[in-house]
Each structure stands twice: as structure tokens, then as C-alpha cells.
């Protein structure tokens, strides 16, 4: 019970902190002091209190977009184990639901973008659709590999199974997976080198251009949903790359929080040292990620 409570509290309150850590890391690389760690919280709260401006072309789909994408991410957060602790809800095949919940959220975000009738938002929506098609197989190769390694059919079982002993046993396959999944993590959360959440040029954006017309509370929900998505997908990645576990519940929670912050620092570092890719290069990198993951599957199946 305590563990479920901690899981929920972390899922609700921690996500924006990751954005703060990423921002701070980037500021450190640029030699600035940077915004405080809690800045994303202030931003979201201010947006939630603001008024809204709607485009006259929009329908209810536009209003549903942010709600659906946040709700689906929140349900996905119930399925993913945090650190060594199993998820509050776990059943055979929950990894499929996990993957498809994001697709549902994406469906409505993209439809909401097209609802505005703006060609910029249409452009963002088309890019999101294309890149997610290419990212999806990578995730499933990873799930197949993990399912085979652990002999189980649920996220909690297959992710908690990953430990230093599994790393010794199937290290090559896991290294390939870590590579593939890191690319997926970055593209799904619209980070550099795929997308730049801070750019100011609509023509080059993906996620931010889709939500260009949202304002006020809806935009607050979108910002919060984006940080939650980073948190939920990050929790998946942390299991693969940083599988620390001690067996003591409180220490394990602490280790999980530290690994998530480490991940934020890593993402911040990548964002600081890399330039954005040209849009035509992105599919190539995504296909490469799929191939990495496919190699890892073949390694464990042979």
C-alpha cells in the first residue's frame, strides 16, 4: 500500500522536476545560472490560472486533444514499475496496453492540431505521425527481447528482471537495446537532436508546432502531460540502463529517484553537445534504432 502511494505521488509530482534538471544542465553547459529547478512547476501553475483563446475554426476535438493525451499518459504511468518496485497494476499483456495508450494520446493530439486548419500545425502533425510509425517497432522489439529474457508477459515482471546478472548473461543484447531505446526516448519526447522544445521557428518544430494554438489551462495540461510522458518513458529506460536494486524498499525508492535525475542530466548533456538533425536525417536514425533493437531480439532468440 505504501509503495503504491509512493508510486502515485512520484508520478504526480516529480515529472516537471526532470524538465527543471534538464534546463539546469543545459544552463551549466552554456555557462549560465539558469532558471531554478522548480521553474517548470511555476510555469504550469501560471498557465492553469490563465484565460484561453480559441481559434474560430476549432471543434470539440481541439479541446479533447490535451485532455486525452494527459489521461492516457497517466494511465500508462500506472503500468510501469518504478525502480525495483512493481507497478500498481500489472497483468499479462500490459506492455501492449502501455504502448497503445501513447498511440491513443497521439491520435488526439494530432487530430487537434489538424482541427486548427493551420498548415504549420498540419506539418507538425504529419511529422509526428511519420516518426512515431518508425519508433513503434523499436519499442516492440525491446518488449519482445525483454519478454524472452524474463520469460514473462507483463511490464513489471520483465523490467524488474533486468539486473546486473542479466547484464552479464545477455550484455550484448541489452547494450543494443539501450541504444535503440534511448533514441526512442528522445524522439518520443521531442528532445534534441530530433526536435527542440525551445525553438522559436515554427517551420522546424514537431511537437511544439502541433500545440501552437493551445493556450491557458489546456496548454498547462499539455506541458504537464509532456513532462509526465518523459517520466514514464524514462522510467522504462532507466530499468534497462541503470538497473540498481538493493532489496530494501526505501533505498530502492531513493535509487529510482537518483537514476531518474541522472537520466535528466544525461538528456541535458546530449541537448547541450549536439545540434539538431536535419529533418530528412531523422527517419534514417529511427530506422537505425529499429535495427539495433532487432539485432538484440535476434541475439536472445537464436
Amino acid at each position, binding site marked *: 500500500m505504501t509503495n503504491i502511494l509512493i508510486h502515485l505521488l512520484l508520478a504526480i509530482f516529480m515529472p516537471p522536476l526532470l524538465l527543471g534538471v534538464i534546463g539546469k544542465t543545459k544552463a551549466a553547459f552554456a555557462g549560465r545560472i539558469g532558471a531554478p529547478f522548480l521553474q517548470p512547476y511555476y510555469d504550469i501553475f501560471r498557465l492553469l490560472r490563465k484565460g484561453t483563446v480559441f481559434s474560430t475554426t476549432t471543434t470539440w476535438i481541439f479541446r479533447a486533444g490535451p485532455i486525452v493525451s494527459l489521461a492516457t499518459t497517466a494511465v500508462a504511468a500506472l503500468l510501469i514499475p518504478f525502480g525495483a518496485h512493481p507497478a500498481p497494476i500489472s497483468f499479462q499483456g500490459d506492455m501492449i496496453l502501455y504502448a497503445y495508450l501513447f*498511440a491513443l494520446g497521439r491520435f488526439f493530439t494530432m487530430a487537434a492540431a489538424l482541427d486548427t486548419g493551420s498548415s504549420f500545425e498540419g506539418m507538425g502533425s504529419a511529422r509526428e505521425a511519420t516518426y512515431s510509425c518508425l519508433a513503434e517497432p523499436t519499442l516492440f522489439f525491446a518488449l519482445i527481447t525483454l519478454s524472452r529474457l524474463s520469460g514473462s508477459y507483463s511490464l513489471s515482471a520483465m523490467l524488474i528482471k533486468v539486473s546486473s546478472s542479466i547484464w552479464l548473461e545477455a550484455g550484448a543484447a541489452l547494450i543494443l537495446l539501450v541504444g535503440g531505446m534511448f533514441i526512442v526516448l528522445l524522439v518520443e519526447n521531442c528532445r534534441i537532436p530530433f526536435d527542440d522544445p525551445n525553438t522559436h521557428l515554427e517551420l522546424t518544430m514537431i511537437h511544439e508546432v502541433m500545440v*501552437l494554438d493551445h493556450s491557458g489551462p489546456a496548454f498547462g*495540461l499539455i506541458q504537464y502531460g509532456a513532462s509526465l510522458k518523459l517520466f514514464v518513458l524514462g522510467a522504462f529506460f532507466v530499468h534497462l540502463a541503470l538497473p540498481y536494486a538493493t532489496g530494501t524498499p526505501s533505498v530502492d525508492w531513493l535509487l529510482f529517484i537518483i537514476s531518474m535525475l541522472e537520466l535528466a542530466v544525461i538528456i541535458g548533456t546530449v541537448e547541450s553537445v549536439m545540434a539538431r538533425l536535419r529533418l530528412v536525417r531523422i527517419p534514417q536514425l529511427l530506422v537505425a534504432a529499429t535495427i539495433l533493437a532487432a539485432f538484440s531480439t535476434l541475439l536472445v532468440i537464436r
Partner: protein
Amino acid sequence: MIGEVFSSGTILIIATICAALSGLPMIVPRVPAVTGQVVSIVLMLIAALAGIGAAITVLVTGRAELFVIPWTLPFDNCVLGVDPLSAWFLLPIFLIPGCAALYARTYWHARHNPANVRKMTFFFGLLTGAMSAVVLARDSISFLFAWEIMATAAYFLVSTEDQKKEVKEAGTLYMITTHIGTLGLFALFPLLNLYTGSWLFPAAASLNASSPIATALFLTALFGFGMKAGIMPLHIWLPSAHASAPSHVSAAMSGVILKVGIYGLVRTLTFFHGVPLWWGCFVLLLGVVSGVVGVAFAIGQHDLKRLLAYHSIENIGIIFMGIGVALVGQTTGSSAMMMLGMAGALLHVLNHATFKALLFLGAGSVIHASGTREIDQLGGVARRLPYTALLFGVGAVAICGLPPLNGFISEFLIYLGFFRGVQGTGIAAAATALAAPALAMVGGLAVACFVKVYGIVFLGVPRSEEHAGGHEATWQMLMPMTLLAMLCAVIGLAPGLLEGALQQASMTAMPAILQKGVQPLAALVPLPLLTIMGITLLMLLALLYFWYRYRLTTSPVGETVTWGCGYQRPLARMQYSASSFAQMLTGLFAFVLKPQAHRPRIAGIFPRRTSFQSHVPESLLELVYIPALERFYERFIPIRKLQNGILQQYVLYYLITLIVLFLSDNF
């Protein structure tokens, strides 16, 4: 109760006859077309209700029945029967035409279509009866009779508007391909007779699959039934036929006729035991190719109904994947894979029937209101047709396989089958491991495609005033769509309701499950948990919705034009179009799609007005089949003299054939 007086099998046969004859009033010239249409719709609805009720009874009780009807043909008796597998397929066979018939009341009103409504209504009833008869047939000859009636009735329905050139061409293409498929069946059933010595269908799991003749049976069945189901690369008839037929006929064709092809394949597979591994892998491969390539073609389409037709190919691919997993499981002896794969495939048969019929009917409403099928001419339809937009939206989410609707449940079962397969060894594990990401990719592409359709057709602002969509559909059109949308939601949220029926049907379709010791579906899939997750999601959505609505009432809300990056006067033509949305993806799949673009030359400082066009052709038909057939045709010109169009000579051919057969039998 009627059920105590008549057995479910008897009711099904009566419903079949009732449906087949429902269009009879329409071919009596003295009956006014308007009256005849109403009578035939009522007859269809009665047949549908009786048929669905009886099919459900069979599924619940799991009882099989056989009717032996002696006839004077020189083959064995005519045998009809019903078992849970037949009953499962009878659900869409009666449900979709029932919905479509009611829809046709205003969509194809007798008063507005005097030229073809009689023909269309008559053949629509006949088609429904014939499909039901195919599923009930238990001997080769009555199966072929029903099959041919079905195929021919469908031809007349496709060519309803045969005054249009493209419709006529689509009808001809359909007629040719369906007969090539039937040719496969003409090979299949005599081979079966050779193997068993009887024209009756053999008992379940009675044939050894390792003999060469079994291989021949498998391949001919795959060809004949695959042609009807529209599996790649035998799908060439499907896009144009579905696009040319009236929308409610497209709904029935895509929702049900393709499934009769699936039924034929599944029924044939029940005859065998000990299937070799390559059968399953081959079916799986066909499924993966159909799924990925079908949806890639769909993304490139500009015609709303052609696009939906390509999605049928994709969904048939998903069904094949399920059957493939089940077959692989039969070889490796995994009862879980058999159950999950077959249950997923069968559930997807029903699910695809519901959401694809819903989408075709929705497309029909849009076409009825706007007068065009061109996606890039439409836009903003949701404002004029809000209910149609909502219902089409439900169908779009369902067909993408997204939770909490029904498409997700069947794909979930198939995925679980894959994950089970991965725990095995060798080629079986590798095949299933590669199929799962392929299915994920199909899902991602389907989302892209339906966001495109929904966004371009229903959202934004109308791209041209003449096609803005005048009126909402009538209640006769909205009611069937509402029913289908509710089914999508109910199956998605409470899949447990179907568990028993699905298990019965899967065990009939995969007799090997029984030999391996049944693992009940409930032990393999946590269906109640999916219900809980679906409800959790809906509750969270409701919570956020009410909070958001409260926020909107307590904070200032303004309205303005869409942000155009500083540009103040956006035009409807500036919106993203279907082609531009799909451009990146068609580019990635250019190696199969072969998109064609007609680029203008732009020269000078003030270039003249020009235009740009791009489209994705049916590349397999245009680049492979037609050139090959043309060469074939040239070679065979001398033989064509035999086919001279003189009926008397054809009768002579019959006589000569009979004499030759007689002589060869006696010497």
C-alpha cells in the same frame, strides 16, 4: 419460445431464405419501387434479427447441427450444418447487411435512384442469403453453388451505377478476379474428393497434413479464398470495387464478403492435423505483407472510399497474422498460441466488420451530403454533420486498434500469441518475434492514416464551398451507425461478454486445441482487467473534462483566427492537405508505392499560374499484372477463336466435352 419449437439451425436456414428473397418484391414491375424497398428492408431486418438470435444461441450452447437434404445431382447429398465456427461468422453476415439495408432507405432512396434501385435491392438480399448459405454448407457442391451466387450477386452490386465508365471497369475487374479465385476452388474440392473419396466436408482434424496432396489443398485454398479475402498480392480487385459500389454495399463487401473468404480458409484448415511449420510461417508472412503494404497504400490515397478499401487489406492481413500464429502454435504444440491466435483472428473478423461498416456508412453520409469522395476537396464536415463526425471518429479510433475500443482487444490477443511464440525455439520463435514489431508498425501507420482522414475531411474549414456538406444524415442512416459504434465500445470495454462464444468458436476452428488440453481463454488473457483499465481511462477523461470545463467558465475565454505566424488572413486553401500530410510516409514507402507526381516547371521572376498533382497508383495491377497479362493475351490469340460469342457453338462444346468424358470413363 420459438427456440423450443424450431432448432437454431432451422431458424438459420429460414433466415437465410428470407434474406435471399427479401428483394423479390422489387423485381415485380407492378409493385411500386418505394413500397418494394420498404418491404424488402423489413424482410431483411427480420432475417437479420432471427439470424443473429439463432447464431448467438448456437454460440452459447456450443451445439452443432446437421441437415441432410437428398438431391438428384450425381454427387453426395446436400448437407447443411451449423457449429460455433459457422455461427461466429453468421454474426457479421446478418448484422452488417441488416444495418446496411436500413441505411439504404435514405442513402439509396427508391425515388432518387429509379434506374438501379430495383436491381440493387434484389441482389443485396440475394448476396446476404448466399453468404449465409456458404457458411452453412457442409459439402463441396452446395458450397460452390452458394459461393458462385454470392460472387455474382456482388458483381451486380458493384456495378450498380453501370452507366459510369469507372464503375463498369471496376465491376469487370472484380468479375475476372473472382472467377480466377473460383478456379482455385474448382481445383480445391476435386482434390479433396480425391483425398477423401467424398464430396462431403471431412471431419475435423481427419486429414494428415504432411502428404503432398495436403500441400496442394492448402495452396489452392490459400489462393481461392485469399483472392476473395483480398490478401496481398491477390487484392487487385478490391480497391476499385469497394470505391465504385454504393457505400452501404461497400460496407457489406468489406465487412462481410472478405470474411467469407477467411471463413473458407479457416474451415479448410480444420480438416488437417499435424500441419508443418511452413504453413503457419507462410500465412504469417502473407499477413505481415498485407498489413504493412495495405496500410502504406491507404496512406497514399486521395479517394475516401479507396482509402478505406486499402484498410480492409491491412485488416485482412492482421487476421492472417492471427491465423498464422495459431498454425505455428499447432506445429509447436502450444495450446496457448493456438487459442490466442485463433481467438484474436476470429474476434478481429467481427471487429473489422463492425468498425469498417461503420466507416463506410459514415463515408457514405459524407458523400451524400457533400457530393464528392475526394478527400482534398472536403474539410470542416464536422460542423455540418456533427453526429456523423462523432460516429466516424469512433470508427477511426477503433480501426487503429486503440484502447478502449474493440480493435484493441483483438490485436491484444494476437500480440499475446506472438509473445507466447517468442518463448519457443528456432524458426517458430523468430517468425513470431519479427511479426510483433510489424504489427506495431501497422498500428502506427493506421493511426497516421486515420488522423489524416479525420483531420482533413472532418476538421478545419471547408476547402470548397460546393463540397462543404449540406445536411446531417437522416435517422435511418444514423441509427445503424450508432448501433455499430456502440458495439465497438461494448466489445472494447467489456470483452468478457464474448469470452465464452469466442472460446467455443476458436476450439471449433482449431480442433488441435482439444487434443493439447484446453487452456481456457480466461487463463490466457485478463479480459476483466482490460475492462477495469478502460473504465479507469474513461473516468480520468471525465474528471479532466469537468475540471477543464469548470476552468473555462471561471476564466476569460476569447476567440480569434488560427495563429498563422503573423499572417492575418488565412484561407481555406492554405490548410494542410491529405497529400501533404501523407507525403513523408509515401516517400518512405516509395519502393512499393511508386508514387507519381506531375511537377510543374517554374521559371522566371513572375512564374505563370501552374498546378501540381501527385497520386499513388495501384502499382501491382498497373506495373505487374496488366503488362504480364497483355503478353499472355498476345500469345493466346489463336485459341481465342474458340470463344466466338456464338451460343450454339458453346452448346456444341458441352456436347463434345460430355462425349469425351463418357468415352474416357468407359475405356
